[in-house]
């Protein structure tokens, strides 16, 4: 038995089915014609018509969890708009929290991204070698490599001859402007707000000094900050506030003058130079002679052996996230497994008097003195932990600086009291500060938001806060500046050594013209006014304007204002829309 469906399929075609087949054929013909017409229009349109608007597409990344404050999204948006305004680049904004952001740039996953830099040592090299040396550029995400520039960097690092350094820094900055692996944007501002009448509140470029402030008629100063203590062990600290406090409590061989970044003797009798004979003529040996009667807060002696042991300790512990690499890598002191992970044997020698220590470097390091002024090289007492980080509590924190840490409630408050046995109370006497520390006590309250700082100084009459330092938002800063007279406060804004810049990954944006076009597109003045309420300074080189050897190459080459004409000329020359077999295709990714 055949089922009904089978019967239907086996049945001969009925006459009624014929028109349906004819209709389908016509539909097919129409479809084919339409396709042919579309293809012809596409081909001839491509050959004879105007090519469609094609833009170079790139991603602009920024951090979204406050690593650079609350303005990062605004900054990224303004930059995106500026680059897109010229019309030939399309920017997509992307963002990630810091840990992810950090990983992405190390893995070379971002085209263009925003970063900031705070120098470790106050030498122009710290604005150059970390960015433009092949190894530095790889770690900072631009992946720029230029053997000639590497050679120039080695030269400026290993000579103390100013004219040679001048020439090499000029060469390097010229290459920076030509190759554009970075676009310098602006120098950050430093700011402090304090109650009228307090004096010597200095926005020092390296180290904010609480121990020079004077509040007439008072023996103590109360401050607040939104920073937090990470560690008060010099071998571990590598963040601004921890180092700021360490600089009040510990001392280093060399220190900075109260206002400028000029180095002067700290624990050492003099700053070693070739001229005074304490640096060898080849720049490989630095000798520091210690002052007499140096003692830590616990009464233990501070001698040359302690200095050497402290540096060995920082290098040996090499605490993750610390600045130890500045000693054994950047400072060339080395780290030898055969010597218990200390510096290599013979790199530091102490003479029989135990007052003099000499560093024997395998290569000249022109900024070695700056490294000896950095907190990581601060001597610590013999009793400090040799196997790990020293706790940041009282009485574990023991330095030799003008203040002692006498109270520390984590994330709440810390208190500093005068160290009566400070070795050089007249250190700054010739600079208008007769005795340090000036006040007997400094209390720094730790807040967790920028808004809290504004409130602290707004309500200083009831809060008792005299000084707020780091970091007010641009809006709050402007507001407080406007109302300063009414509130009875002073708001100082000054240059900061921090720089902000765009990193361009040269592997992902290999076209030099595109990178140069971005440099033409940026309008730093607009960034300043729109995002930072006119509180930052435009930056035209990676070396800020207040540093030696700076050359505003981006101003010279790309101008101070947005230049879309030049940007677009470059992109047109690049021809990223190319013609292939009569069909226009886009090269953008």
């Amino acid at each position, binding site marked *: 038995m055949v089922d009904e469906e089978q019967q239907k399929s086996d049945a001969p075609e009925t006459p009624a089915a014929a028109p349906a087949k004819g209709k389908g054929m016509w539909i097919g013909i129409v479809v084919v014609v339409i396709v042919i017409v579309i293809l012809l229009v596409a081909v001839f349109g491509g050959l004879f018509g105007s090519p469609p608007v094609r833009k170079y597409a790139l991603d602009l990344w920024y951090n979204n969890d406050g690593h650079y404050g609350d303005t990062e999204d605004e900054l990224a948006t303004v930059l995106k708009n500026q680059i897109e305004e010229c019309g030939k680049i399309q920017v997509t904004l992307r963002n990630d929290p810091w840990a992810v952001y950090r990983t992405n740039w190390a893995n070379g996953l971002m085209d263009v991204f925003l970063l900031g830099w705070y120098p470790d040592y106050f030498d122009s090299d710290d604005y150059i070698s970390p960015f433009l040396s092949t190894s530095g550029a790889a770690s900072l995400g631009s992946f720029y490599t230029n053997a000639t520039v590497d050679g120039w960097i080695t030269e400026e690092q290993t000579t103390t001859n100013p004219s040679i350094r001048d020439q090499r820094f000029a060469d390097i900055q010229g290459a920076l402007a030509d190759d554009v692996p970075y676009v310098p944007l602006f120098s950050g501002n430093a700011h402090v707000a304090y109650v009228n009448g307090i004096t010597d509140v200095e926005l020092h470029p390296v180290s904010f000094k609480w121990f020079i402030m004077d509040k007439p008629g008072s023996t103590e100063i109360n401050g607040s900050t939104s920073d937090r203590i990470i560690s008060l062990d010099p071998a571990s600290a590598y963040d601004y506030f921890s180092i700021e406090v360490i600089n009040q409590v510990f001392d280093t061989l060399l220190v900075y003058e109260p206002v400028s970044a000029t180095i002067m003797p700290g624990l050492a009798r003099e700053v070693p130079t070739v001229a005074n004979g304490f640096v060898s003529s080849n720049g490989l040996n630095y000798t520091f002679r210690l002052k007499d009667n140096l003692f830590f807060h616990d009464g233990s002696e501070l001698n040359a052996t302690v200095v050497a042991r402290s540096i060995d300790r920082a290098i040996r512990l090499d*605490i993750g996230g610390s600045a130890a*690499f500045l000693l054994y890598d950047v400072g060339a002191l080395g780290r030898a497994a055969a010597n218990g992970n200390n510096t290599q044997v013979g790199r530091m020698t102490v003479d029989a008097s135990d007052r003099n220590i000499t560093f024997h470097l395998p290569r000249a390091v022109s900024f070695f003195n700056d490294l000896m002024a950095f907190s990581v090289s601060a001597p610590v007492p013999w009793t400090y932990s040799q196997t790990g980080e020293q706790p940041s509590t009282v009485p574990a924190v023991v330095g030799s600086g003008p203040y002692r840490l006498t109270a520390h409630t984590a994330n709440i*408050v810390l208190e500093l009291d005068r160290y009566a046995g400070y070795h050089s109370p007249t250190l700054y006497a010739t600079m208008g500060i007769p005795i340090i520390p000036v006040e007997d006590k400094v209390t720094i309250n730790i807040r967790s938001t920028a808004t809290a700082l504004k409130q602290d100084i707004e309500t200083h009459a009831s809060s008792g806060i005299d000084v707020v330092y780091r970091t007010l938002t641009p809006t709050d800063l402007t507001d407080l500046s406007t109302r300063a007279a009414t509130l009875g406060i002073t708001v100082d804004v000054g240059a900061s050594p921090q720089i902000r810049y765009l990193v361009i990954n040269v592997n992902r944006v290999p076209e030099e013209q595109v990178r140069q076009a971005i440099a033409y597109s940026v309008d730093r003045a607009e960034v300043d006014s729109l995002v930072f309420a006119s509180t930052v300074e435009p930056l035209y080189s990676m070396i800020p304007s207040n540093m030696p050897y700076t050359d505003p190459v981006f101003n010279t080459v790309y101008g101070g204002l947005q230049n879309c004409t030049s940007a677009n000329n470059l992109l047109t020359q690049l021809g990223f829309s190319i013609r292939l077999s009569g069909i226009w295709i886009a090269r953008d990714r």
Partner: protein
Amino acid sequence: MGGGRSILAYAVTRIALAIPMLLILLTAIFVILRILPGDPVLALWGGNQPGPDVIADARARLGLDKPIHVQYWDYMTSVLRGDLGVSIGFQYRGSPVWTEIGERLPATLELTIASMVVAVFAGVTPGVIAGSRRDSKLDVAIRIYSTIIYAIPIFWLGLVFQIVFAVWLGWLPANGRWTGGDVPAARTGMFTVDALLEGSFDHFGKAVRHLVLPALTLGLVLGGFFTKTVRASMLQTVGADFSDAARARGIPEWRVVYYHAFRNALPPVVTVLGLQFAILFAGAVLTERTFSIDGIGNLLLTAITSKDMTVIQGVIVVYATIIVTISLVIDIVGAMIDPRVRL
């Protein structure tokens, strides 16, 4: 008593169930944190980056170079021993997680307890009044108030309080838990309690002054929810047969309300109270941010941004433990209040 045994058995069962729940939660968090992108070790040096050998060394010291299953086993066995490990993020690097939690948990507990006190007083009393005077003008006013106060964002109310009471009037501190170096000697970490323990009423007053605005902010918002809950529960009990029976016996209305209706309205309210205590911890995050209080919520936020896996896991263990404990206590208290549970 049979009822007593029942509650005990119930409690033991709940505790027994809580342990695998915590293990599952911990496992899930462990896996999720390792699937998510981001390398906390690279972030240790901020924008700088030392050589690869230094980074590899740091990774090895933190045990992050081991296979994932070995890391998991190490971590879980450590947790079972009560060791939550050390922080691997930039902010708290190397510090024991227990230490970081221990420094901040008292701040959060102090805030949540104070807020709960505010919420109970500011929430339950209006709820009872509204529930016992249905559709009166007072009832309508309380309903409007409770809706508005519950809908207000915590951070906004906090900012308003800061501006009015701290900046304009200067009555109370605008932020923080303490100002100055004379912090009470730490016994519990809760400044109000520590001040009392050291016998200093000045310090107690100072701690309370710092606590008033954040506790009011969080407590009032939560109180709005309590008002609604209590009112709804009261509406049922005020009109219930046993209340009518009490009225029929000539018992005064206020006694009917407070001794009959309110008592019977309590069980659902207590349950909600307990659950809200858990929610308070979430609200405390916002309040801590607004008032610059470095509590456990702030710790969690910071740890998340730096992908500090051990701290995140540690805080979640503590949160979960607290919430499970509170739930347990509330269930037992609920059973004690409501005789039907013991039937």
